[in-house]
């Protein structure tokens, strides 16, 4: 919302300075976005007087002038035909920046004569396009600042333009008068009264108006207008054109400019029809049948949908009610009889139609936020008077249908509650005075909002008005103690702690944390079991972001591809965040995913460089699970989703409850996503881990034996695809009391192994640690356990003890 300072002063009797206004506006919630002060660029220039002028010795068209300035007499060479003795001019000195020619002046030598500055034309100072000669001022003293002279003699030339942001709740501030009212309430002047004198009609309006009964309750409560005949349209007066231009509007014609002026001055949008082009002498406000083509004032043709509110005459749609008028019936320079419309449109109806047709207009912007319904008729009267003043003519009686909707309501002002909510001591009298200054009517403790404040809908709104005018900048902070005294309890839930633990554990394992977008392209989503209709974003911002991600790996692989393109081959990336299984609010779960690509280390003298493999991913997954307190004995299965390598991936689960997957990413997926392998990864479903059942911090007592533990190694030959875990579990089961641990310490497989042990065979070597509890083991006892282990393992694996 733009306006000029002088425009504001039309409504506000004030002595306040521009800076005071700017501070107050922002503080009041009418945030100043920009101030254009045309005087700023003219600040250096002063008035001077030409004492003497004579022809340049070496140039016919130049004059050498002797100029009296505030710094004494100076010689200035000038090419203007009007440069002559006796005139008062605007002086630009060496060092000054001249905006119209984009030059910072120096002392110049023109055809051998030194020139100490220049005398400016209007164009050179960006005051107008005038460039036939230098500025001649009819008054002014040598040394006087040119801006001061302008302020006194041509104030519009140095009138600051202020642009403020209006929050959606303040339609009243979309008119200059509303802004002035806020400033007056703040104490920066007095709101000037607005006198509305009804203009008596001289005849009956030849155009009648009717509102379709279906629209009277909701849509168009009130439609009024009158014909003004015999007007002379044409350019509007200069002051009006200047005002509109200052706020970025293009002057069109007096009639149109008047409607624009009322829109910005009083937030009262109007429309003018050329009465001669209204067929049948009647305007009807009705719901459209649908399919009508309508050529609007913006030059575009819109196809109107069924039910949208329109103004029709006998030939069809003439205006998109409250949004935009029609080109056909619009006023032109030839218009003689005009129908001036002032209506109150329902905000919701206007918003819906405007959005559906994608039309943004000043009228829509205002009507959908809510203009003052009670000002519909006064606005019509004031505008009629202005038409008569500027264009002449004779006004008819007012025709109207509907009535001003009843917006009367009142809310209780509880001064103590205001103080309690704001935390600022605002006396009751001040609270009441504030509301009255804003137009509220106070009766006892009830405050009735003015008709121009549709946003005030409850007691809380009264609090806001009082606080805003009192100035929140003045608010002083007050300490807020914790609800309980003493050492505060932990505030994170166990699940929140777990998520943080997962994140920092993975980072500690050497992964770099990424935060990737929650949405992903359809193709990538499909690769990871997603891309379903419920997870589709209906209005995606790009084709790369059409679906919610079903799995974090997709985003990490895309990140890996981008990094590979930048020349980084070895990557360890991870993310902890949400993945989406569906489109309902609950269809979200936390994943912790890590991705290793390339080599496990750089090239170095120690041969550290080797391709990452499944066991890297497995180790990291297990480390994270351990950090999260997962039970040690989870099962490892092979039941994994399709984006994993079917032979080189595993699923860690507790019964049916999957905790994690690790393995190589399926080569097809890598190819589709443009990632050069090898790439291994893990995904942990952080929420699937059970929480420990016991409460309390106490650990079970440590059981240690003074007796020496015994380790025995065994090697077994078995089929290559028998899983080692089978052998381990079988060995563990041989004597649960005695066997402390079993681990695989060697695997011998491949061609050499098969040469020794037969085709399709491998060898697995286990070390078993026996921990006697009450007495040292005898050789015989050790032999007995060993035999049992061999028996169990060979039975479980179908293998044999390696000879």
């Amino acid at each position, binding site marked *: 919302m733009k306006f000029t300072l002088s425009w504001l002063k039309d409504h506000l009797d004030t002595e306040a300075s521009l800076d005071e206004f700017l501070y107050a506006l922002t503080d009041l919630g009418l*945030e100043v976005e920009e101030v254009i002060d045309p005087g700023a660029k003219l600040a250096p220039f002063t008035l001077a007087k030409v004492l003497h002028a004579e022809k340049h010795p070496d140039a016919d068209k130049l004059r050498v002038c002797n100029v009296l300035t505030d710094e004494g007499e100076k010689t200035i060479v000038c090419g203007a035909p009007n440069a002559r003795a006796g005139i008062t001019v605007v002086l630009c000195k060496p060092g000054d920046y001249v905006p119209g020619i984009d030059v910072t002046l120096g002392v110049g030598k023109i055809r051998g004569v030194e020139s100490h500055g220049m005398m400016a034309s209007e164009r050179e100072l960006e005051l107008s396009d005038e460039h036939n000669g230098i500025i001649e001022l009819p008054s002014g003293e040598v040394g006087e600042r040119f801006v001061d002279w302008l302020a006194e003699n041509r104030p519009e030339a140095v009138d600051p333009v202020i642009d403020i942001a209006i929050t959606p709740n303040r339609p009243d501030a979309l008119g200059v008068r509303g802004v002035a009212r806020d400033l007056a309430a703040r104490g920066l002047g007095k709101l000037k009264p607005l006198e509305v004198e009804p203009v008596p009609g001289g005849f009956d309006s030849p155009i009648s108006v009717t509102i379709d009964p279906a629209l009277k309750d909701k849509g168009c409560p009130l439609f009024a207008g009158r014909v003004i005949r015999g007007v002379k349209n044409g350019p509007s007066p200069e002051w009006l054109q200047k005002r509109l231009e200052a706020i970025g509007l293009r002057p069109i014609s007096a009639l149109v400019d008047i409607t624009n002026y009322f829109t910005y001055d009083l937030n009262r949008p109007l429309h003018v029809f050329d009465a001669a082009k209204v067929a049948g002498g009647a305007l009807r406000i009705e719901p459209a049948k649908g399919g009508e083509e309508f050529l609007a004032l913006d030059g575009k043709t819109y196809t109107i949908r069924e039910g949208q509110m329109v103004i029709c005459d006998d030939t069809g749609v003439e205006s998109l009610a409250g949004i935009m008028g029609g080109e056909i019936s619009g006023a032109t320079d030839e218009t003689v009889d005009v129908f001036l419309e002032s209506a109150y449109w329902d905000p919701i109806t206007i918003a819906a139609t405007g959005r559906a047709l994608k039309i943004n207009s000043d009228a829509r912007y205002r009507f959908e936020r809510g203009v003052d319904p009670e000002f519909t008729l006064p606005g019509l009267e004031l505008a009629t008077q202005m038409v008569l003043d500027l264009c002449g003519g004779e006004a008819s009686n007012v025709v109207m249908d509907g009535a001003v909707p009843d917006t009367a309501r009142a809310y209780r002002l509880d001064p103590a509650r205001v103080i309690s909510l704001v*935390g600022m001591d605002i006396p009751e009298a001040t609270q009441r005075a504030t509301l009255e200054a804003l137009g509220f009517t106070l009766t006892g403790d009830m405050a009735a909002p003015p008709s121009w404040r549709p946003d005030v809908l409850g007691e809380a709104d009264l609090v806001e008005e009082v606080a805003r005018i009192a100035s929140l900048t003045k608010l002083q902070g007050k300490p*807020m103690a914790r609800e309980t005294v003493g050492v505060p309890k932990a505030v994170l839930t166990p699940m929140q702690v777990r998520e943080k633990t997962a994140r920092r554990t993975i980072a500690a394992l050497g992964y770099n944390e990424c935060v990737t977008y929650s949405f992903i392209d359809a193709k990538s989503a499909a690769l990871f079991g997603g891309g379903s209709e419920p997870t589709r974003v*209906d209005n995606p911002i790009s084709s790369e972001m059409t679906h919610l991600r079903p799995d974090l790996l997709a985003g990490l692989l895309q990140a890996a591809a981008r990094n590979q393109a930048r020349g980084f081959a070895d990557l360890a990336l991870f993310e902890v965040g949400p993945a989406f299984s569906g489109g309902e*609010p609950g269809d979200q779960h936390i994943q912790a995913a890590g991705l290793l690509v390339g080599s496990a280390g*750089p090239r170095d003298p120690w041969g550290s460089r080797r391709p990452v493999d499944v066991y890297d991913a497995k180790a990291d997954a297990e480390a994270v699970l351990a950090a999260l307190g997962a039970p040690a004995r989870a099962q490892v299965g092979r039941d994994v989703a399709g984006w994993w390598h079917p032979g080189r991936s595993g699923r860690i689960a507790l019964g049916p409850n999957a905790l994690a997957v690790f393995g190589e990413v399926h080569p097809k997926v890598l190819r589709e996503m443009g990632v050069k392998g090898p790439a291994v990864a893990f995904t942990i479903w952080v929420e699937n881990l059970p929480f420990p059942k016991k409460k309390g911090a106490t650990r079970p007592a440590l059981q240690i034996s003074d007796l020496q533990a015994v380790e025995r190694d065994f090697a077994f030959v078995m089929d290559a695809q028998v899983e080692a875990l089978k052998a381990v579990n079988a060995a563990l089961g041989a004597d649960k009391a005695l066997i402390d641990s079993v681990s695989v310490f060697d695997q011998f497989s491949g061609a050499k192994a098969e040469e020794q042990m037969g085709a399709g065979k491998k060898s697995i070597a286990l070390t078993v640690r026996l921990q006697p509890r009450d007495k040292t083991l005898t050789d015989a006892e050790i032999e007995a356990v060993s035999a049992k282990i061999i028996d169990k393992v060979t039975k479980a694996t179908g293998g044999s003890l390696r000879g």
Partner: protein
Amino acid sequence: MHALDELKAKYLTAVNEAASEAALEEIRLAALGKKGEISLKMRELGQMSPEERQTVGKALNVLKDEIDAALRAKKVALADAALDARLAQEWLDVTLPGRPRRQGTIHPVSQVMDEVTAIFADMGFAVAEGPQVESDWYNFDALNIAPEHPARQEHDTFFMARDAADPRPPHVLRTHTSPVQIRAMQAQGAPIRVIAPGRVYRMDMDQTHTPMFHQVEGMAIGRDISMANLKWVLEEFCKAFFEVDNVELRFRASHFPFTEPSAEVDIRCSWEGGQLKIGEGNDWMEILGSGMMHPKVLEAGGIDPNEWQGFAFGMGIDRLAMLKYGIPDLRAFFESDLRWLKHYGFAPLDLPTVFGGLSK
């Protein structure tokens, strides 16, 4: 006694000159072995008179101890020399690299969330969460944003696809963390103090906007919590977060449908030389939006606005990270460029705490 002196000289010289442990052993046997010279002399003591025996015996024992000590000392000296010789051979180039170890990092968004959590936890705020796909009721209606209200259009909302047969309005990707206010109130009632950090989504992508970013919501409801309390809480937060002794906040009246009165909050700062300094200078920078919770929002959360009142605020986590750590470009947060992750990331064990400080 002269003979003993000679013996002593002879053996000590021999020990001193011995070049190996074997030579030392030979000397030991020759002197102190069963048939060694000193042992033989010991045996001769029996044939001496008691007086003589006492003097000679004592002298012999002294001699024996002396030689034994010399032998031991020489043995240690020889071992040391051998070790020195070995160590002299065992030279390695210690400028070669150590075995590689990857260095992981924490993303600035996570780090700042932890910082924010640490500060508010100390002020008694718990952490609440909510879904990122939200019903339009939680995202808008419950927050007093009516369906046709212009504010609703200004949110640049992402809508989820809705099956034509499903009569419900489409779900949205939450446009702010404010719906968590409603969910937290419904779950916990009053009094309550929570923050809610998380991802939010707006249909906006340019130099300074990304379609996904992070916010933290804050809410405190009590019997007499005021806007002045809000200002204090935010002042304390800013001091702690930006790690400065003083901050100055300016509340500026504004409008949010879910708070009343509403205020945008600016912080005093200086941008001198392109470097942001909080708490000094003559510039004001907008950092968050806040206000007293609207009675309708309290009601939507199942809390009686006649009994309870409170404040709420929301601020951008990514923006906090950019301001505090001098990170220039929001878009880079989500690009996962390894160079960026390493440069702006944090060490895994740098968990921000109130007791240990937020940043190094």
